[in-house]
């Protein structure tokens, strides 16, 4: 929780892996889930080292943007740019985060979360 200086800061500029791009193609929520099939990850092998690492993290187990950033140890902003690229290239599948509109949809989701918690 304590903010600290990034010890890697002086070694590699954080946005070098995105070739300096800081704006993702689409804004992906922290908790938005991404998944990757074996075919997609095989294809991602040719998309570059960092993108391939992301694909491998999501193969076999759906992961949120936050989890991808944590497992690859890349800063959130950088991860978001690369993940959005992978989605645009068809190498990752983006699932929807919680529906923000529609009373019934939201109520249903809350109901499912509630019973999920009670069953823990």
């Amino acid at each position, binding site marked *: 929780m304590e903010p600290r200086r990034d010890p890697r800061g002086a070694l590699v500029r954080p946005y070098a892996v995105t070739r300096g791009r800081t704006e993702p193609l689409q804004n992906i*929520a922290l908790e938005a889930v991404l*998944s990757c099939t074996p075919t997609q990850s095989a294809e991602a092998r040719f998309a570059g080292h960092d993108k391939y690492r992301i694909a491998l993290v999501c193969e076999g187990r*759906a992961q949120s943007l936050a989890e991808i950033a*944590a497992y690859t140890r890349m*800063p959130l902003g950088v991860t978001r740019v690369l993940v959005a690229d992978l989605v645009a290239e068809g190498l990752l599948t983006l699932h929807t985060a919680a529906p923000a509109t529609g009373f019934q949809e939201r109520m249903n989701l809350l109901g499912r*979360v*509630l019973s999920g918690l009670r069953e823990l």
Partner: protein
Amino acid sequence: MDFANYDPAGASRSREIISAKIVIAGGFGVGKTTLVGAISEITPLTTEALMTAAGVGIDDPSKVPGKETTTVAMDFGRITMAQDLILYLFGTPGQTRFWFMWDEIIRGAVGAAVLVDTRRISDAFAPLDYFENRNLPYVVALNRFDGAPVYDLEEVRESLSISPDVPLVMCDARQRESVKQVLVTVVEHAMLRLQAEHDRGYPASVG
């Protein structure tokens, strides 16, 4: 190669997975990560965002050459509830100068629990102010630290000026059952609020 008919192993047919998020807020050292760890199926993970030390609103230090980079860390956990439903628990950064990160964390959340340490009640003022000015359902949870002064809940409600319609509960952030109860309270409160807003005839916006 022709990719026109390329369907990556049925990716387009795969089942949609929905994720929901509950925010665990509170001052520094109040037990947010302990609470997340007590119920998460994974050891709490840390995601880091980079920004300049000066950096409110700037998360791209490369645009500001010469400024020092600070890392803001947020811890989070995961509960897979079904094949198509995952609940994430996000802790907020403890420092008040990182409020702008809170905005991103609460966007789209189901609700929040503001954790309070009874030994440092005044640390809760800033997080509570934050949520009073947002449209996100939240509850207040008093984390019982060993040897901490024991207060009556209504005493705490009064001293923190917590509105009567905000649920206030005791908890032990180390105990799974206790944490589960806090999260259940958050979701129940969110459902009541959503229902009430629906009955009044205007849609609730999130965040």
